[in-house]
């Protein structure tokens, strides 16, 4: 798979999100106001014209409301004929008089309806689309599409091959940014296109059997560092997001950040067999004629025009291929294998630091390696579990569509905690004569390498710049390599002592993983988790918040079974001279620890692995 591919999506939303709230302030709610409908079509026309002027084709995602509007329909048909735009169907933009009259609800997020309503709405919307255009769409989407919804659509409307299926890291952070009024979470998914599994849309399929039959694309291409820490809606390939984040010069109206973001995405081709991707999908509410946030309408338009021009220029230079969603789905399937991972070595382009993260996503996990913390794993989602997680009214997760984490440094601390307890992270500590240093405090950078393994598969390897650890009586130079072998469901950390100021010294190495499970920043009940050390005997600790621990010299591995998320985590070394240990947490520190301790001499190395599996 090669080249930089762009999907541009527009939707004629007759009642643009935000518009009724913003332009309608001080008026009684009326979603059928003529002014609102006219404005929406004007915006849609402007977006389409801007793309076409720059030689770019789009995917027109008709909303349910727009299927009742002759002008929107004829525009779509005309643009399909003239520019080759795809006419598709979105499940966003449901609100309109016809919808409210029929469903008697103000709910508008398709994933949050009951399954019965989901089916009924899908049939309604797809049926209306067919009635108007004479065919069923090949692409659809929403901000999130749960697995049951995708499976239903695919079964009933097999022409669908592509869907916008998540917003990267829009969970509690988005909720907070919206003054705790964005009542749905969707953290933990892939940042770039993937083939979703039938069990869970966020978890990529590992094989044909698990394949949901569609290619999923994320809503926008997001800053993989800024979005992880801050509001997702400030840092994406959505020009008005960049304005929302105030990342522009108020005097010159320039925003190099937008182009840096696009270019960094382009640079990811180095880690993905020459392929990179961008998606831009700006809803009409963001081009409100009354302005949005602090930005006047003129700036909103300028940012959209500039964004399109940048893409258009790249296309003219032969550096970009624009595709419709369905074209992209075919392209993606023809080039990508199920187990080929998506990799992103990402640098800070906003604060001006040298901070660097590595994101890895395959059918078994999504992981974040933080070079600012010595190569620690600071986010981990066990996709291997293919967790069935129904979403919507009538399920245990009415609003929470996030894929659960084992490690999340923002919601469960990470290395730094206040006063007591531990945060989730997978790192290592070196100690010598009573002093201890955690590699989380060894800032470094990494380079990306690939190595052929068996059956033509590859290992993706992060080679971290060596770090120096200074004890009172000893200086140690240590190199870390983080290895992801395709299809292995493992993360391997190799530590190598490059030099020691005292050649005869031995340092203690404690490789560890502090973890828990959850989707939000609040702790879940850990009861039911079982920790064990597997060696000569099997030592078990059922989790009861009693702060117990156990270890065994020469053991094979330490294991955590987390039935709440159908996940088994195994942590072990590639040699036996050392101890594996388990630690239960306590009420103030609701975590568990799996670890391995050993001693290392000069020039010695050891590899520890963390394996993820479905629990049963």
């Amino acid at each position, binding site marked *: 798979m090669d080249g930089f591919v762009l999907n541009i999506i527009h939707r004629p939303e007759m009642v643009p999100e935000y518009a009724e709230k*913003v332009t309608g*302030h*001080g008026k009684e709610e009326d979603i059928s106001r003529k002014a609102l409908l006219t404005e929406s079509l004007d915006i849609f026309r402007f977006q389409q014209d801007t793309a076409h002027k720059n030689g770019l084709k789009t995917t027109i995602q008709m909303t349910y409301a727009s299927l009742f509007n002759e002008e929107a329909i004829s525009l779509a048909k005309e643009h399909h004929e003239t520019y080759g735009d795809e006419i598709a169907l979105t499940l966003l933009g449901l609100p309109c008089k016809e919808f409210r009259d029929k469903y008697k609800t103000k709910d508008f997020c398709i994933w949050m309806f009951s399954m019965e309503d989901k089916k009924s709405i899908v049939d309604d919307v797809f049926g209306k689309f067919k009635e108007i255009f004479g065919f069923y769409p090949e692409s659809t989407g929403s901000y999130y599409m749960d697995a049951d919804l995708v499976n239903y659509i695919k079964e009933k409307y097999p022409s669908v091959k592509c869907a916008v299926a998540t917003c990267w890291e829009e969970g509690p*952070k988005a909720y*907070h*940014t*919206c*003054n705790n009024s964005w009542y749905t979470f969707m953290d933990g998914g892939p940042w770039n296109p993937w083939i979703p599994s039938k069990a869970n849309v966020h978890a990529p399929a590992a094989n044909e059997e698990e394949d949901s039959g569609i290619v999923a694309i994320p809503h926008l291409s997001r800053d993989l560092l800024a979005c992880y820490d*801050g*509001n997702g809606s400030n840092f994406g390939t959505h020009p008005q997001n960049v304005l*929302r984040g*105030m*990342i*522009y*010069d*108020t005097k010159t109206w*320039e925003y*190099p*950040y937008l*182009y*840096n973001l696009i*270019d*960094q995405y382009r*640079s990811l081709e180095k880690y993905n067999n020459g392929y990179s991707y961008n998606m831009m999908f700006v809803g009409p509410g963001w081009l409100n004629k*009354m*302005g*949005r*946030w*602090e*930005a*006047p309408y003129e700036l909103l338009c300028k940012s959209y025009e500039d964004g399109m021009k940048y893409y258009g220029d790249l296309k003219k230079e032969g550096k970009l291929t624009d595709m419709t969603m369905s074209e992209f789905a075919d392209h993606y399937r023809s080039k990508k294998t199920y187990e080929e991972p998506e990799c992103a*070595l*990402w*640098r*800070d*382009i*906003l*604060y*001006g*630091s*040298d901070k*660097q993260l590595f994101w890895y996503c395959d059918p078994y996990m999504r992981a974040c390696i933080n070079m600012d913390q010595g190569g620690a794993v600071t986010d981990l989602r066990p996709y291997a579990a293919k967790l069935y997680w129904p979403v919507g009214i009538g399920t245990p997760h009415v609003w929470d569509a996030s894929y659960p984490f084992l490690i999340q440094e923002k919601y469960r601390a990470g290395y730094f905690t206040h006063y007591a307890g531990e945060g989730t992270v997978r790192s290592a500590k070196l100690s010598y004569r009573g002093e201890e240093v955690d590699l989380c405090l060894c800032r470094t*950078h990494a*380079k990306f390498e690939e190595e052929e393994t068996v059956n033509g598969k590859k290992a993706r390897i992060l080679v971290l710049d060596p770090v120096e650890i200074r004890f009172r009586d000893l200086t140690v130079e240590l190199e870390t390599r983080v290895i992801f072998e395709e299809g292995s469901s493992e993360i391997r950390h190799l530590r190598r002592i490059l030099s020691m100021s005292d050649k005869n010294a031995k340092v203690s190495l404690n490789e560890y993983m502090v973890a828990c499970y959850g989707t939000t920043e609040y702790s879940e009940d850990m009861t039911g988790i079982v920790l064990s050390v597997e060696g000569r005997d099997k030592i078990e600790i059922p989790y009861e918040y009693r702060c117990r621990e156990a270890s065994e010299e020469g053991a094979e591995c330490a294991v955590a079974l987390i039935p709440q998320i159908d996940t088994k985590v195994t942590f072990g070394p590639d040699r036996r001279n050392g101890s594996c240990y388990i630690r239960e947490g306590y009420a103030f520190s609701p975590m568990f620890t799996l670890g391995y301790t050993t001693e290392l001499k000069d020039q010695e190395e050891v590899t520890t692995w963390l394996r993820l599996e479905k629990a049963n």
Partner: protein
Amino acid sequence: MAQAGKGKLNFRCPSCFMRDIDMDMFYDPDKKEYYCLRCQYRGSEEDVLEKNEMARFRYGAIAKRFTDFEI
């Protein structure tokens, strides 16, 4: 005192913005100031714009064009 309304744009509270909360402010025409419903910030348009500039302090690379993404 009459009710507040929207100002000419959706000015957000700069104080809340700095803690990652988007709070649209309302405008008090009697006092000629915007005010936040969530925190205690209030200020004139000029003050809002000045504080918004301040909020950008963390964007050290706001004016920088990157050509290399490897470190």
